[in-house]
């Protein structure tokens, strides 16, 4: 299992567009589950609506986890996306 934490700086938080893109990135790794957690509530990054419903705002800290066959590649890709877009 690979994991990192990140504090969101985008003023809108995880809004529709980046959530959609994040879900796309997370889905692209076979046999690997990427989750996003905030305040103990965790959702799969591929669950777009649930991901948005976490209500992550600027200043919130999220924990991103990848688990499975391609977890190294997945966590690197997701981290890059998150750092550049959120």
């Amino acid at each position, binding site marked *: 299992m690979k994991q990192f934490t990140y504090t969101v700086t985008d003023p*809108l*938080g995880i*809004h*529709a*567009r980046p*959530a*959609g*893109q994040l*879900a*796309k990135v997370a889905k692209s790794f076979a046999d690997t589950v990427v989750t996003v957690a905030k305040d103990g509530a965790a959702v*799969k990054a*591929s*669950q*777009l*609506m*649930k991901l*948005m*419903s976490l*209500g992550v*705002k600027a200043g919130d800290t999220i924990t991103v986890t990848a688990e499975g066959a391609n977890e190294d590649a997945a966590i690197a890709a997701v981290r890059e996306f998150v750092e550049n877009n959120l």
Partner: protein
Amino acid sequence: MILMQGKGVSKGVISGALYFLRRHTGEITKTAADVDAEKARFAAAQQTAIAQLEALAEKCREEAGEKTAILFETHAMFVEDEDFVECIQSMMEEENTTAEYAVQQAGEQFAAMFAAMDDAYMQARAADIRDVARRLVDILQGAGECGIDSETPVILAADDLAPSETLQLDKSKILGFATMGGSGNSHTAILARTMGIPAVCGLGSELKEEYAGRVAYIDGETGKMVIEPDELTLQAFKNKYEKQQQRKQLLATMKGQEDVTLDGRKIKLYCNIGSPDDVSAVLSNDAQGIGLFRSEFLYLAAEDYPSEDAQFEAYRSVAAAMDGKRVIIRTLDIGADKQVDYFHLDKEENPAMGLRAIRICLNRPEIFRTQLRALYRASAFGKIAIMFPMIASVWEVKECKRACQAVMTELDKEGIPYNPDTEIGIMIETPAAVFMADELAQLVDFFSVGTNDLTQYTLACDRQCNDLGKFFDPHHPAVLRALKHTADAAHKAGIWVGICGELGADISLLPTFLAIGIDELSVSPSAVLPLRAEIRKSIAQTCTLDLLQ
């Protein structure tokens, strides 16, 4: 013969095939005959929806930019969202429902989840979910995509049209409008009048989906709509159509004539427009100027605050096209009834009385400054006047003028040309502004009465409400007395006063307006020539104030 009665909101008679924009109110059956068949229908609808959305995203990428394109891609992902799909499938299985029922229920459930979040942005996403659910239901019911998928022009039928929908319509395909909901003040009605095409609103459930494709006859004056008319009705319709065409020819002779009464009173006859595209209609109807250029289109059509340059270009192009004729541009008039996502306005119980128009501008000086800079820069290219909406207090006007002064000082420093004598006016649309008209007139170059809002505030009648009917009476003596009070104050201070609300085009009130001494009437482009014909027949001195009693 099928006869329906609605409200005529844009004059003219026309016939054409009926085309339904959407099937919002199509009956949805709950119980399915064969659940497996429903599941297969849902899977097929998902594929169709994704294909539509991807095509839409592609179209946006070419025409509107990457950001809108991603929005539609996000919609496509909603269609495949695991939880959403699971919710739909389990409802079909467990409750034995049709695909459209399950989609609608799941859509509402997920939309409610977003609506309940404590964040205005996420609350607004409920609309995205509903949009996606509606698309799926439309596909399941065999309705076309939002838009007009027809080779020939049609009479467009819909429950009602949202402002964002009207932006997407191919206007060359529309002969007329027939809607279930809506009133004379609805977006459909205003759009129809601007385009000069017939419209009937408020047909209610009598307007049935099954009429799609059949030839309908609508009369935008009487509010009648007929399918398969009998001989007598058809003949009456044809006669009226004939007269209408003759009248059009007669009106064409009004072009190039002066707007003056028989006894020599000159009236400024201007147009209301909503975007630079409407300028061609202003010119072809031979108006003397633009009395109300609603700047909202720049904000409503955009994804983010429109830049100073984009605004400047829009204002400059209109001012230049009008070639020295007056162009009155109203500053931003949005609020909770004309929502723009990126403003992040909170939901309001009563948007008409909320944070809107000039109130937003005075609270967010940066937005205001950008628009004022664009306006002043454009003032070097034509005869621009600036008008502030929703004024209630003297201090608001003073603050607006200070903002104008600050922008002029900036432009001076930057060496950018502008017209320092750009006229400044205000909308009179609150009862407060009517009462304060004497003081307000000292501060500005002109008044323009927004009768739609003035009527709603004076009579305490919500203009968006369909059911107020006889209570929402723009001819109410209270409204007409407010007009007179405003005009007297303007003339005492030596400034002119106009009307830019819908009432300005009401020919039955023209004698009253002449008696009050209204100097300017700003109306839809299609109303210019009929009004000119009336003005040229009138004798101002013999007009009376009887209707004020």
